[in-house]
C-alpha cells in the first residue's frame, strides 16, 4: 500500500467520477492538502460523556439506550469554543464528510501542534475503503490544563493509502454514513460476547 502524496491526493479528491473520488465535503481550503496528508477540521457537534449513577457500560447487557444516556449531544457554532478539561473525554467529528472509494483506505491521526498540548484526537484511527461519513474523533485531554476546542479549526490529518488492487470489499460495518459523532455501537457485539460465554462453558466441560 502506497501513501498518496500531494499530487495523488489532489487527483483523488478531484476525480470527476464520483465512484472513484475521495470525497472531502467540503474542502474549504486547498492548503489543507499537505505533502502526504490531508488536514481535516473539527465539526460543530459533540457528544459529551456524563457522569452517571447507574451501572457502567457492559456490552454484554446489550442496552443501546444506556450508551445514549451516558452522553449528551452538544452543538457548538463556528466562532464559539468548547473547553476540554484534563482527563476529559468526548466524541467530536470531522467537519468534512469523507467518502473513500473502494481502492483507497486511510488513517486519521492528530496534528502535532495539538498533540504537544496534550490533545489526543483519535484512537480508532483506521478508515476502511468504502467508508462514508463524518469521521468520529475520540478527543481526550492528556495535558495539565483545559484546552479550548474551536469547531472549524484544523484538528487532525488524514493519511490516505492506495490499495494494491480494487478488491470490491468495502466497509459495511456499524457506522455507515454518520453525519456527526456517532455513539459507540459496542452493544451490537453482544452476540460475540455470548459466544465467548459459550466457549467458556465448553472449555469448562471439555474432557
Amino acid at each position, binding site marked *: 500500500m502506497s501513501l498518496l502524496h500531494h499530487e495523488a491526493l489532489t487527483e483523488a479528491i*478531484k476525480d*470527476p467520477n*464520483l465512484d472513484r473520488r475521495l*470525497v472531502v*465535503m*467540503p*474542502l*474549504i*481550503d486547498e492548503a489543507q492538502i499537505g505533502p502526504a496528508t490531508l488536514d481535516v477540521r473539527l465539526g*460543530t457537534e459533540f457528544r459529551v460523556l456524563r457522569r452517571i449513577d447507574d451501572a457502567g457500560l457492559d456490552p454484554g447487557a446489550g442496552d443501546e439506550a444506556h450508551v445514549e444516556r451516558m452522553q449528551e449531544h452538544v*452543538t457548538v*457554532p*463556528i466562532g464559539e469554543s468548547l473547553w476540554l478539561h484534563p482527563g476529559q473525554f468526548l466524541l467530536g467529528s470531522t*467537519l468534512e*464528510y469523507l*467518502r473513500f472509494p473502494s481502492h483507497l483506505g486511510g488513517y486519521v491521526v492528530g496534528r502535532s501542534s495539538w498533540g504537544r498540548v496534550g490533545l489526543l484526537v483519535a484512537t480508532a484511527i483506521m478508515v476502511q475503503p468504502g467508508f*462514508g461519513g*463524518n469521521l468520529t474523533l475520540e478527543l481526550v485531554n492528556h495535558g495539565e490544563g483545559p484546552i479550548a476546542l474551536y469547531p*472549524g479549526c484544523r484538528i487532525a490529518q488524514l493519511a490516505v493509502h492506495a490499495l494494491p488492487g480494487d478488491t470490491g470489499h468495502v466497509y459495511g460495518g456499524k457506522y455507515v*454514513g454518520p*453525519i*456527526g459523532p456517532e455513539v459507540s455501537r459496542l452493544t451490537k457485539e453482544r452476540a460475540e460476547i455470548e459466544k465467548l460465554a459459550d466457549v467458556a462453558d465448553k472449555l469448562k466441560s471439555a474432557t
Partner: protein
Amino acid sequence: MRHLTALYDAVESHVRSRRAEFLTLPDEASRIGGVIEMRSLVRWAQELQSSLTWVDAISDPPLDLGTKYFIELAARRLITPDVDLVLVPAADSSYATYSDPYRKIVSEWGNPATIEGDRVTIVFLPRREQRSALLHPLILHELSHAVCSDHGLTRRALEKAMKRKRLRKRFGQAAEAVKARDNVVDQEAALTVAAGLRSWTEEAICDAIASFYLGPTYLYSFVVEVLGGNIDRSGSTHPPPRKRIALMLDHLDSLGWAPIMSRYAGPLDEWLRHSVANGPAYSEERDFLVWMLETTASDLRSLVGRQLDSHSLTPDDAVLEEIDELLAAGIPPAQSHIGTIDPRSVSLGCWLHALQNAGGDITSLPLAADASGIEGLLSKGLEMAALVNAWD
C-alpha cells in the same frame, strides 16, 4: 443581551423618575393618583414580562445549525444587515413574526429611542415542525412581513393599486355588498374591504418575496402545509391557498423555473397547474379581493423584483444536477466541483431529489417532507455550504 440591558436601563430610568415624584406628593388626592399610577406601572411591567417570553429560546435554539445559518442569512439580506433574529418553538400550529415586541409597550411610558441596538425580529414556528427541515422555508414568508413593514412595500403596492380606476370602482361595489350583508354603515363596510385589501396584498407580497428568494422550494413547503385542508378556504386576512399557489406559479414561471420543476416532478407540476386553473367562484368582497390579486400580480412582481434585486435565486441546472448526484450517493451537498454552492440551491436540490425519489406526483409531496434520510443531509449541507460561502 444588549437589547435586554438597554431595556432594563429604560425601565429602571422610568421607575426611578416616577418613584422620586411619588415620594414628594403634597396631598391626599395626589397620593391617590400616585397609587393608581403605580398600579398601572405594575400592570405595564406584567405586560412587558409577557412580551419577553421568547427570551428563553435564545439559550436553546430550536433549529439545527444549518437551518439557523440559512434563516439568519435570509434575514440579514432581506430585512437589515444588523437584524437580531430569534427563532422560538411554539405550541401553536402556525408560523408568526413579531418585530421589536417590547418597543410599543415601552413607548407607552417612556422614550422607545432609549432602547438602542439591533433590530429584534422574533419568528415563532410550530414545535411539531421543529425537525422538518424541508418545511422551514415557510419561515421566509414570516420574515417577509418584517421586510414589508421596514420597506413600506404594502403601502407602496396599495398606493399603486388604488390609482386603478377599475379597482376603485370594484372596491365601491364590494363595500356595498358588505354593507347589505352585514347591515352596517358605509364607512364600516369600506373599512372591512380596505382591511382585507391590505392583508391580502401583504400576504401576496410575502409569498412573492419567498418565491423570488427561494425559487420553487417555498412553493413545495407551502403546498405540503395547506394540502391537508381546504385550499379554497379564505379568511379576512389570508387569500385562499389555491389563489396563492397560482400566483407563486406565475412568479416562478417569470423567473424561468418551469423547466426544472417539470423535469424533477412533472406530474406534481401538472397537477398544481390544473388545480389552480379550476378554482371555484368567490362571493362579494372575496371575489373583489381575488380579482384584485390577479389584476395587481404583475405590479407586485415588479415591486418585489426591485426590492430583492440580486437576492433573487436564479435557476442553475448544472448545480442542481450535481446536488442530485451527491444526494443519491448519500453525501451532504455543500460544494460543487467548481466551487461554492448557494445554500438555497442545497435546500431546493434536497426538495427536488426527495420529490423525484417519491414519484414526483402530488402524493410525493408529504412523503418527501417526511423522508428521514434527507433531513440530515439537508441540515448538514446547509451548515457546511454556509461555512464555505462565508470562508471565501
